[in-house]
């Protein structure tokens, strides 16, 4: 199978974020960057499929400035075969603008599966994969946490609120990957890191679409008003219930 995985470079979420001088972005000084969690799981899944079948190709694609080459190299070090950078000065917030550029690259690529993360952990949009599928006219299943593929068809499970949906679809298809699909992503071995340096990484200009959804301001969330410890042990329960009734009015 030929599998494409779209991976996004995002800041490590453990950081304490500061707002940049423009008031509409995050200050990147001192931040570490990684592959967005769900995208890394998608790479892992693609590699597992290839290993299981003993053949196939895994292509990773990332849109952004040259810094995304580091992100692509990491996926290559994990075991992906080749990478494509869709070069853009910055990564827009609008998922449709990104999707247009990714779809233009994926179109005619002959992929059996095109994998996305369910959501990018920085934008928290969760739209790009579905939009690429629509642009390419391919079936799409979102938030896949379990997957079986046989004879050109797939059966996927997706988590709903308090329920699990079982979905069938034909290949080629687009999937957005949720946790559960793989236990965890592998760490690149030294051998993989060395091999990755020689793997092909093609750079092309991104054909971004018009931007219709844009961030005009970023701010740190209002701190939650300082809470209080009501007391210790079950002795504190009556006071808690009183507060829930009279102060918070939620009981």
């Amino acid at each position: 199978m030929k599998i494409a995985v779209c991976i996004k470079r995002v800041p490590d979420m453990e950081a304490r974020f500061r707002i940049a001088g423009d008031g509409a972005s995050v200050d990147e000084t001192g931040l570490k960057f990684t592959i967005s969690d769900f995208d890394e799981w998608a790479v892992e899944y693609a590699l597992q499929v290839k290993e299981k079948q003993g053949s196939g190709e895994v292509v990773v694609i990332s849109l952004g400035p040259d810094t995304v080459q580091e992100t692509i190299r990491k996926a290559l070090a994990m075991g992906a075969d080749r990478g494509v950078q869709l070069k853009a000065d910055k990564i827009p917030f609008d998922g449709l603008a990104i999707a247009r550029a990714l779809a233009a690259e994926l179109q005619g690529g002959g992929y059996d599966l095109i994998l996305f993360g369910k959501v990018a952990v920085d934008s928290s949009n969760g739209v790009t994969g579905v939009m690429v599928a629509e642009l390419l006219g391919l079936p799409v299943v979102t938030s896949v946490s379990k997957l079986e593929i046989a004879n050109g068809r797939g059966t996927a499970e997706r988590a709903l609120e308090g329920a699990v949906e079982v979905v069938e679809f034909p290949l080629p298809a687009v999937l957005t990957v949720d946790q559960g699909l793989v236990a965890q992503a592998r760490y690149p071995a030294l051998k993989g890191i060395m091999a990755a340096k020689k793997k092909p990484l093609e750079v092309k200009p991104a054909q971004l679409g018009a931007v219709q959804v844009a961030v005009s301001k970023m701010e740190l969330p209002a701190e939650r008003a300082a809470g209080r410890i009501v007391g210790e042990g079950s002795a504190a329960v009556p006071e808690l219930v009183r507060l829930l009734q009279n102060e918070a009015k939620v009981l």
Partner: protein
Amino acid sequence: MANVLAFAETRGGELRKTGLEAVTVARKLADASGGGEVHAMLVGAPGVAKFAETLGAHGADVVLVVEGAGFAQYNPEATAATAAARIKEGGYRAAVFSASAQGSDLAPRVAAKLGVGLASDVTAVEVQGDAVVVRHPVNTGKVVATVKVTGTPAVISVRPGAIAPVQAAKAGRVESVAPAADPAASRVVVKEVRQGSTGKLDLAEAPVIVSGGRGLKAKENFKLVEDLADAFGNAAVGATRAVTDDGWRPHSDQIGQTGRVVSPNLYVAVGISGAIQHIAGMRTSKTIVAINKDKDAPIFKVADYGIVGDVFDVVPALTAAVREAKKAG
């Protein structure tokens, strides 16, 4: 005058609260842009039109009913095609979905078909001149973005629980709409919906969520959490990733960065440390209560009310006290 479409989500033949939330947001947008009409789109098996009255009571002037046996389960492709066709024909100013599991699947399909961007998972909306302006938590909730949507129609999805449904009596006049695509021709087919153990209330709808973490020590002890949820009567059960990874609860119950993002009126964290990845999923809850034996647990930093203590001591007492309070009130 600009009309706004709201997608009134159903599941298993029931209208979902997330559908009413979408109607409420649509009402707000319509009123703010010169008093247009709200058209609620209701898709389901024959008989689904019975929810028109409820939608009218929450501000829908018109209820667009798409009925058919092929829509008994969520049918992503036919539903998206039908919604997009109607939005195009109707010349709507905006279209509002829920950022629930279903809405998060549907909204980007519809937006892409319309060739417009999507502002997803929004927690507040307003109209500013020609633009719809929304708030949307990014970077796992550690940063909040103000996002301007300039496409027409403006397509948005609303975080479940973030904006409470409001009554606003309107006609709710039923208009039947033909599907724009044959549901039987969909390539993506829902074969089965397996209900979890959580009973009727789920995380996107429940006004109260009681969540358990590793502090409960063993799968059986989740009974404590279920009993407390039961005492509230309007509560769903959530869990941390530590717990879902260990198989104590299904992954669909997980709250956090890699799970569900929720905003209930009351969130009770039982034996949960409060890792940032967990807090990312519940920090916009209106009131947070934490019960943890470690007074320095990070969960107390976001909790409005905390009890330092053993869950096996505190939770049964709280369950009994909530039952009492419910009986009295």
